[in-house]
């Protein structure tokens, strides 16, 4: 049985094309993915991301526990509402999931994990928590919205009460505000300014309606994917998984190496890999001609070495196809990809392709 978010009926009423995503009936688009994409880059769009897994971690040992299971270090979170992006690694340094961890107050944290990895994530956490003074609680009572785009702040400020609205402007990226049952943070997955709001199920509908009324465009998972691809952001299960480490996924920056005595799970493996030097990296590809780069296509370098596209698609801002590909670490220049119409030349670039509405590649 597929699960539905509290906004399902609203999606249907707004004409959404509904697809099965990780066991959820989610909107792919509401008519045009390209228009939705453009609205997020130019004004403001909103996404129902209530399918994501939200888990509360609380107890005297919560901090100690998270410092062990996450590769980034929650000790860096000093003020309530502050957040980190991090990987959760297995013993061989492979990525079990990528997530955002919020520090709410002494002994209280919240994790936002992927929907597709829900069961294994919760089981992994539960197993590691044995014997600790700690409670892990999945928050199925909470919904989540992402409001993204250069006008997100303005729209949000207008629609929330003035005290909260004023505080939003002061939030820096990865800072959040817990107010009552709501957690509003300056985070997102689009490469634009914006917020993610975690709030009780029964309150998400009215907020969605108010934002829609204020001109915030409803956006589906299609635009979410093309936006994150332009922004060079990894998608779990495509660009990274349990067989790839953060170092080969452009996520070395999310590992807190200091203090050296913090023995997080996977540390030995990623330290060894770092010492030897990672052999692969995620790079960007641009196809200047027509056609489409797609996940799984082989990338052939001029010297005969090979890589593979992990995420590919159309970039509405560039008007061309772009991709993320796992390539030998020093690959540069051009490469060849076998498209359905025959071989095509692509250029190797450093992602991101687009951030804050600006094209960052040639």
């Amino acid at each position, binding site marked *: 049985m597929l699960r539905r978010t509290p906004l399902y009926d609203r999606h249907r009423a707004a004409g959404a094309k509904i697809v099965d995503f990780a066991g959820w009936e989610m909107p792919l*688009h509401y008519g045009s*993915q390209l228009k939705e994409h453009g609205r997020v880059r130019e004004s403001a769009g909103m996404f129902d991301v209530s399918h994501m897994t939200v888990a509360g971690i609380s107890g005297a040992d919560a901090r100690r526990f998270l410092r062990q299971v996450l590769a980034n270090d929650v000790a860096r979170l000093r003020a309530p509402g502050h957040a980190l992006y991090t990987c959760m690694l297995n013993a061989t340094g492979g990525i079990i999931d990528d997530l955002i961890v919020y520090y709410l107050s002494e002994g209280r944290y919240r994790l936002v994990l992927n929907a597709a990895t829900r069961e294994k994530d919760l089981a992994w956490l539960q197993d590691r928590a044995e014997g600790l003074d700690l409670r892990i609680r999945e928050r199925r009572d909470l919904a989540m919205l992402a409001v993204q785009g250069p006008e997100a702040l303005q729209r949000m400020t207008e629609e929330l009460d003035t005290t909260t609205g004023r505080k939003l402007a002061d939030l820096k990226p990865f800072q959040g505000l817990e107010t009552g049952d709501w957690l509003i943070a300056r985070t997102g997955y689009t490469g634009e300014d914006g917020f993610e709001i975690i709030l009780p199920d029964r309150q998400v509908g009215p907020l969605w309606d108010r934002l829609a009324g204020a001109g915030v465009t409803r956006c589906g998972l299609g635009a979410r994917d093309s936006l994150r691809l332009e922004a060079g952001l990894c998608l779990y299960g495509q660009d990274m998984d349990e067989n790839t480490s953060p170092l080969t996924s452009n996520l070395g920056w999310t590992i807190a190496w200091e203090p050296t005595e913090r023995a997080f799970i996977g540390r030995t493996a990623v330290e060894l890999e770092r010492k030897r030097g990672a052999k692969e990296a995620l790079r960007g590809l641009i196809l200047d001609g027509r056609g*489409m780069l797609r996940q799984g296509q082989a990338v052939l370098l001029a010297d005969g070495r090979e890589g593979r596209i992990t995420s590919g698609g159309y970039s509405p801002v560039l008007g061309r196809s772009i991709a993320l590909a796992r390539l030998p670490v020093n690959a540069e220049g051009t490469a060849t990809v076998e498209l359905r119409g025959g071989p095509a030349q692509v250029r190797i670039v450093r992602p991101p392709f687009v951030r804050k509405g600006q094209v960052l590649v040639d």
Partner: protein
Amino acid sequence: MSNTPSDLYYAATHEWARLDEDGLVTVGITDHAQESLGDLVFVETPELDKAVEAGDACAVVESVKAASDIYAPVGGQIVDANARLQDEPELVNSDPYGEGWIMRIRPDDPDDIERLMRADDYEHMIEQEEEG
């Protein structure tokens, strides 16, 4: 619910065909097809003057989601292709039976079009496909 004009003919591969007064067959993809594909970003129109058999792949539409071959619904010679689609592939989404037409074929046999489905059969086929 997608739109299926009753005056057109339909192929199982989701093309529509219309026999025009000048004896040519205009071809495009159906509203149902464009809806399933999502926003089109490239259309590779067919080679002009090429001789095709019914069922030959002769054009490609590529959307944000997938690429799809377009098959000639009747045999003949391709005499025209919609050049606007090069820069405006979205016409196929916005007006699949009008400005989003893809090609025109001079049929070897004008009666060939009768072998295609009428609107109610095509709609029935879509319903069955959707029921899986």
